[in-house]
């Protein structure tokens, strides 16, 4: 029983953590390039609605996912234009992007609120996991094999891919350079502005994917503001992850589990939440409070290990300006 309960929580964490993982990875990439985009929440909503509407219209969830990514990418260019070309304040621009995304989706999403029969992304069973002796039937199969959506596996593959891109390739080398010291990159001919545009766009693609994985797989519905702050949690997770994709994976799954925890705890008979549903409100605070806790933890760690954000994060690059 105990094991089954634990596995249940972990499985749910992996599932509900997947949109968070995409959003976190996207923001991580954007921030590594030196641009802070606080509009993740808005981009996720845009992706969620675009994916939902297109999947519903075409009957094909994959077309929905593609359009969702593009929609997230395109809307992110607003932020890119204001923060890179116009050198505007990145904090406020990101906020504006969240407002626009939230408002836009609530306007355009009105016709979809009642839709229930959207084509979903499929669950991808992995039967051979069951055949692994000892841990197969009791652990691996229920965790990864039985009901994980295909989107979960995409998330699993993306983490090493993003890590490889950042740490082992020439484009990744340039990505890190424009986030740490754009003047050095510029001096050897790296086009800082264009690359920053590109990585803001990539962040948008990921946020769009995060939105679509919500509306087409995890909770296959369209509801206004259905992200419920996950975009903001993703921004926090990037800090928690210390800008490292592997730690982003860990953080996203933990927070996925925390999002589910209220439901799981309410199901336990001997806890007061089962008999008194109003107490469940306190449980709903868990993911938000833990985000703050995670930041406290990671800032202490950052001070201890002298880790930090990319040095040029949030600073517009202007050629010839001192200290850039």
């Amino acid at each position, binding site marked *: 029983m105990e094991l089954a309960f634990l596995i249940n929580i972990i499985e749910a964490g992996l599932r509900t953590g997947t949109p968070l993982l995409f959003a976190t990875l996207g923001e991580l990439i954007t921030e590594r390039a030196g641009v802070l985009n606080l509009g993740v929440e808005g981009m996720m909503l845009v992706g969620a609605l675009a994916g939902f509407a297109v999947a519903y219209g075409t009957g094909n969830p994959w077309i929905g996912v593609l359009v969702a990514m593009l929609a997230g990418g395109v809307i992110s260019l607003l932020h890119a234009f204001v923060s890179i070309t116009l050198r505007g304040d990145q904090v406020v621009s990101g906020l504006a992007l969240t407002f626009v995304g939230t408002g836009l989706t609530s306007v355009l999403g009105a016709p979809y609120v009642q839709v229930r029969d959207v084509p979903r992304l499929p669950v991808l069973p992995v039967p051979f996991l069951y055949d692994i002796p000892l841990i197969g039937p009791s652990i691996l199969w229920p965790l990864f094999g039985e009901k994980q959506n295909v989107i979960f596996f995409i998330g699993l593959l993306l983490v090493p891919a993003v890590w490889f891109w950042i740490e*082992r*390739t*020439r*484009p990744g*080398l*340039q990505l*890190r*350079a424009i986030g*740490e*010291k754009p*003047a*050095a*990159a*510029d*001096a*050897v*001919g*790296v*086009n800082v502005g264009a690359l920053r545009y590109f990585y803001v766009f990539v962040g948008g693609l990921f946020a769009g994917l995060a939105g679509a994985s919500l509306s087409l797989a995890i909770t296959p519905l369209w509801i206004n503001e259905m992200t419920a702050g996950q975009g903001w949690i993703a921004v926090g997770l990037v800090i928690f992850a210390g800008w490292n994709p592997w730690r982003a994976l860990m953080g996203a799954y933990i927070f996925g589990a925390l999002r589910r925890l209220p439901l799981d705890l309410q199901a336990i008979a001997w806890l007061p939440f089962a008999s008194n549903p109003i107490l469940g409100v306190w449980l709903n605070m868990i993911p938000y409070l833990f985000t703050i806790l995670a930041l406290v933890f990671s800032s202490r760690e950052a001070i201890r290990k*002298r880790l930090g954000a990319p*040095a040029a994060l949030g600073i517009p690059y202007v*050629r*010839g300006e*001192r*200290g850039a």
Partner: protein
Amino acid sequence: MKNSPYALEMQGVPYALEMRGITKRFPGVLANDNVNFAVKRGEIHALLGENGAGKSTLMNMVNGLYRPDEGQILLDGKSIKFSSPRDAIDNGVGMVHQHFMLVPTQTVSENLILGQKTPRFYINYKKLEQDIADLSQKFGLAVEPNAKIWQLSVGEQQRVEILKMLYQGAKLLIMDEPTAVLTPQEVTDLFKTLREMTATGHTIIFISHKLDEVVEIADRVTVLRRGRVESTVDGKSTSKAELARLMVGREVLFRIQKKPANPTAAALVIDHVSCENDRGLPSLRDLSLTVRSGEVVGIAGVAGNGQTELAQVIAGLRQATSGAVIVQGQNVTNQPATATIDQGLAYIPADRNGVGSSPNLNLADNLILKSYRQPPIGQGWRIDLRLVRAQAEQLIEQFDVKTPNVDLPARLLSGGNLQKLILAREISRQPKVIIAVYPVRGLDVGAIESIHQMLIDERDRGAGILLISEDLDELLSLSDRIVVLFEGQIVGEVPPDDDLINEIGLMMAGTKVEQSHAT
């Protein structure tokens, strides 16, 4: 002009670099005015001029960072128009900037290939590091390929910069003030490297405002003054005096005139102080030093040996892990910065824009940074704005800060004027102790002279001055005694005697010297 820049070309041999009629304007500034400049292949050509004479601007046009408003640039006889540093690199032009263009968190190898076309995608780090090791062997520039830049000394970082340019296939190498941050021994090594490079067919443009080294290294020298070419002379036959006259337009005083010091009681006592740097590593190690009223104590040393941390510990901006700091008899160790300010300590930080001033605030606001708390400026909860303004206008007049008005944001002041503003603020409080860190770095000769004079005047008024500098000329000229800082410890003390420059250099590199010269 002594040589016609076109003479060689008429013989059919194109110059490595030729600039014709170059003009470059910035908002409010004419940086280069109809400049003609030519460099022969395989020579070391010094570009000499004061700070602000337009040397860097001129070279940034060769490097593709700026584009000329007028004029023509020829490389090996071919007219070129670079629109970015990438173009310059592709055409064999590399520039080593004064502030190194290296990514601190990346390794030597990564920095070297950042601008390369290969490898196109996957980076095989093992192979890469082997290649870089071979390359550094080949050019005799020893560096550790997988060391992170921030772990390297300044001299090593410069080697990485040079290596980076060579790796990118630079034939023409522009060095912007390369010796400013090096010990005398490192300068010797650098000059050896540069000569070896010209022997292998490289051409070097050497930007400098230091006469000694120009005379030592340059084959030919072009002197810039106020954006115009003053003359091009032969490096072997010229003299320091001639160059100085060309550079400044008048005879220069090489040493500031000052009376002998008259030190009295101890104004600042640093008693067995240790501290950590920003990375949590030991910086100052059991350092003791006394500065008396009425003397200038110079601190020599290569940047990064604890200078910044020393100044910060004294000013109350960094925790001492042990020991005591005593200002005017008052123990201020690990007290808030206000404690030292109230004890009459003035601090001129190394970073004028980043620490010493608030760039978007106006000059009046910047002038009350230290005095807003107490009367007469601070009155209870409020600030006397009328007095702030009156005082600002008076200080700007008195300290000769050139500005249209006191409402100008500080960031729009030139370096020299900003430094005068900071000195005005600090000195107007009649400090008992002054900590001055690199007070004239990057300033032109006029500003240097007036700032040095202000410091000497303060000494004569009775302030104890701790002067931290990486410029030995400045230290020798201002100090009454010089101590050398190496790895957070004082390794020796010498009188300010020009003949001891080699000894100081050795100590800066960490050699303990018998304190026979101690005063």
